[in-house]
């Protein structure tokens, strides 16, 4: 599996902007959605997208909720609006293979290290600026896809997994790697198999740097990644592993490190590997070099705790802050029965009564909030400048690729609805509201209560009306 993935990755690098087709998997049973209506279409759209706008609403209204969800689960290749696509196409991260990018960055790093005292500061600054520029490209690409792609679920799930397998871009050279991490490790697998995601994340240099596995070698064990791999990525903290398992997995992971000399930016170094047999989660992993990683990841991906842990987290993102146990169990059964087919697990969730009953009740996190306001305000019109948006996300505590700790951003209302954050959110709302010349489309907003309607009537200008709409309790929810 690892080899196929690496080959696919090499192939992909040549055509970075087209996502690959998922490998052949069982066909999805269509989702039946009895009693469909314009109101439920809008509610489902607000949940299973970065926010309703006129064009996406036209899409769901044309085919109905069930068929729209089916299509979102198995997205066909699609195009962005030409100017958004052109902006992505001209980025360095689209034009150059990652092997070349990291080789050049590494060259730059060595140059400033060896530079004379007077040149050093300038060269160091140039190096830092280049890293930041590359990260900004990746951030901008993320925003453009979230704002304009018709495959909204794929974009939401890309963020979800980027957050699940979170890396912090400020560490080491990750700013140069994070775009590739998203493009080749996460996004192609966002609706695919969990095991493929796990394998791609484990071998990616962004993860190897972030959780220190690049430094983990025989006799110089570093257990950072091993622990988080079980605690945060697969089993969950109560998933049934011990300190011994952490150490065994850390031994399995020895030797997986970086390669910045050109070509694939990570590789296995047999001489740094601890090739003894290991006992992991009650199974013996025979000393077998690079193969051990796949063996260990198979054990983790197919563990019952992983099925539950991942299903529970998906439910917290898409359904409720306190996941209904029955739904989590049903999703975990699908997870195990389909060998971790993410689209199948989501299908179980979308078809559940709990999902329907929860529509309109999830509190938006800052990213969902900002994107939904922008989508409503812009629709297909181009985003004038990504920087203020990235700044707003940072101000609200949810900057892209910048969660410092490996747990990723939290997913519940309690985490995002503190007094300070709400006050900041209204400031951000104002920033967007006052750039829109006319009133936002009321018919695409969630159903409003009396208090909000009465207050809107007091607005003194279209801009203030927009501010109030975007600040309303209804617009805070999806």
């Amino acid at each position: 599996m690892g080899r196929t993935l690496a080959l696919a990755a090499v192939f992909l690098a040549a055509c970075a902007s087209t996502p690959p087709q998922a490998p052949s998997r069982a066909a999805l049973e269509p989702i039946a959605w009895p009693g469909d209506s314009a109101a439920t279409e809008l509610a489902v759209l607000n949940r299973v997208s970065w926010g309703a706008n006129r064009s996406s609403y036209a899409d769901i209204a044309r085919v109905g909720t069930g068929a729209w969800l089916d299509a979102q689960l198995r997205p066909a290749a699609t195009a962005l609006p030409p100017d958004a696509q052109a902006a992505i196409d001209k980025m360095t991260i689209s034009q150059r293979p990652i092997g070349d990018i990291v080789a050049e960055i590494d060259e730059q790093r060595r140059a400033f290290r060896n530079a004379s005292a007077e040149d050093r500061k300038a060269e160091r600054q140039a190096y830092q600026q280049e890293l930041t520029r590359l990260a900004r490209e990746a951030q901008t690409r993320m925003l453009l896809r979230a704002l304009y792609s018709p495959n909204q679920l794929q974009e939401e799930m890309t963020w979800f997994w980027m957050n699940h397998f979170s890396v912090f871009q400020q560490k080491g050279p990750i700013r140069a790697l994070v775009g590739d991490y998203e493009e080749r490790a996460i996004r192609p697998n966002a609706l695919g198999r969990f095991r493929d995601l796990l394998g791609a994340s484990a071998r990616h240099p962004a993860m190897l740097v972030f959780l220190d596995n690049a430094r983990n070698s025989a006799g110089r064990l570093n257990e950072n990644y091993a622990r988080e791999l079980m605690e945060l990525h697969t089993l969950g903290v109560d998933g049934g592993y011990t300190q011994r398992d952490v150490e065994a997995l850390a031994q399995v992971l020895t030797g997986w490190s970086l390669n910045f000399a050109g070509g694939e930016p990570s590789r296995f170094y047999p001489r740094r590997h601890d090739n003894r047999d290991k006992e992991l989660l009650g199974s013996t992993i025979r000393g077998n070099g690079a193969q051990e990683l796949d063996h260990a990841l198979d054990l983790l991906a197919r563990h019952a705790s992983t099925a539950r842990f991942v299903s529970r987290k998906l439910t917290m993102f898409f359904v409720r802050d306190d996941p209904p146990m029955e739904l989590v169990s049903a999703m975990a059964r699908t997870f195990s029965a389909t060998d971790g087919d993410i689209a199948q697990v989501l299908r179980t969730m979308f078809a559940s009564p709990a999902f329907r009953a929860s529509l309109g009740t999830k509190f938006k996190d800052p990213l969902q909030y900002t994107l939904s306001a922008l989508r409503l305000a812009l629709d297909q019109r181009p985003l004038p400048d990504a920087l203020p948006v990235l700044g707003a996300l940072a101000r609200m505590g949810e900057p892209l690729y910048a969660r410092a700790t490996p747990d990723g951003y939290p997913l519940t209302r309690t985490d995002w609805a503190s007094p300070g954050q709400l006050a900041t959110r209204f400031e951000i709302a104002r920033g967007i509201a006052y750039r829109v010349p006319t009133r936002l489309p009321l018919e695409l907003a969630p159903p409003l209560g009396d208090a909000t309607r009465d207050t809107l009537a007091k607005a003194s200008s279209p801009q203030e009306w927009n501010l109030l709409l975007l600040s309303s309790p209804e617009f805070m929810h999806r």
Partner: protein
Amino acid sequence: MNRRSFLASTLGLMACGRLVAAPASMPRFLLVFLRGGYDAANVLVPVSSAYYYEVRPNIGVPKEAALPVDADWGLHPALAQSLHPLYLRRELALIPFAGTDDTSRSHFETQDSIELGQPLGGRSYASGFMNRLAAELGARSAISFTNQLPVAFRGEAQVANVALNAVGRTAVDARQSALIAEMYKGSSLGAQVNEGFAARDNVMRDLGEEMVAASRNAVAPRAFEAQAKRIARLMRGDYRLGFVDVGGWDTHVGEGGTTGVLATRLEELGRGLGAFSESMGDAWRDTVVVVISEFGRTFRENGNRGTDHGHGTVYWVMGGAVRGGRVAGEQMRVARETLFQDRDYPVLNDYRAVLGGIFARLYGLDATQLARIFPQAKSRDLAVV
């Protein structure tokens, strides 16, 4: 500390039956959470332990370099200008072998369990111990200097939060704020929205002057130091209970010894805490700052000249009236035989017992009140405040 006069005014408050600002005499308490598990063994260095030097050949702090504390302990030299003077003035006490019985060695699990402050097993996210303390004191004067409300402050009592590195001029004016608040009347978010506007106005009032001054200042002060000064300004005002967290302590790789990554971080933290104590002015006399972290780190250095997740840590207690200048609490000899699971510092001073003891002294709380803050915990009076 003015326990008696404080109690009297608290009783007065309760009679009114509504929440008003805290009485001026109420002592101030700031909890500083070092997230990431700071390497306590390199901060309060066990200078008399031969085993320490044996298992930390690359990152150990030499006895000669450590600042004098007592025969067994020394302080990291990065704290020479900041916390060591406080220690010598007896305004800083150190509590080694402190922590929790949680042995997951997970950052997130252990941080949450400490912040919740509940007995292990069957915990509830409904409230954290700082929120229960705020509720017990019955005064609306708690604030978290963080972007998100930390688990410790979640719960029934209304607590404000503000990210001090992100305060700026507000664009939503008073009329618009009132209109927005109107939309939230009767909503489950109503209280937060009102608190958010109120805290924004407070912060702008208390910091307005400083922000004008700062904008004229050509040299940007270090990040945490600037933040700490703002915290002092706000806590000198109406706020009595505060929380702030500082990250960047998860030193798995290249931690350094006398100098290096940890030393730089410590220097910055120490400088910030020193600036806080100075900026508090007269109020420093009735202020207590407690610095905690989720766990200590492995006693031995790892293969990358760093340390991995451990168990027992060291808490710091500081304040103008703290009974400091000493190493407090239960202790034991630092040697291989005394390590927990042959790996980490043991925990001899449970965080609930230690903090309960401090709160009892500071606010004159009785056993029943303490049991509401730390259910089923036995508080231990280490007499540090």
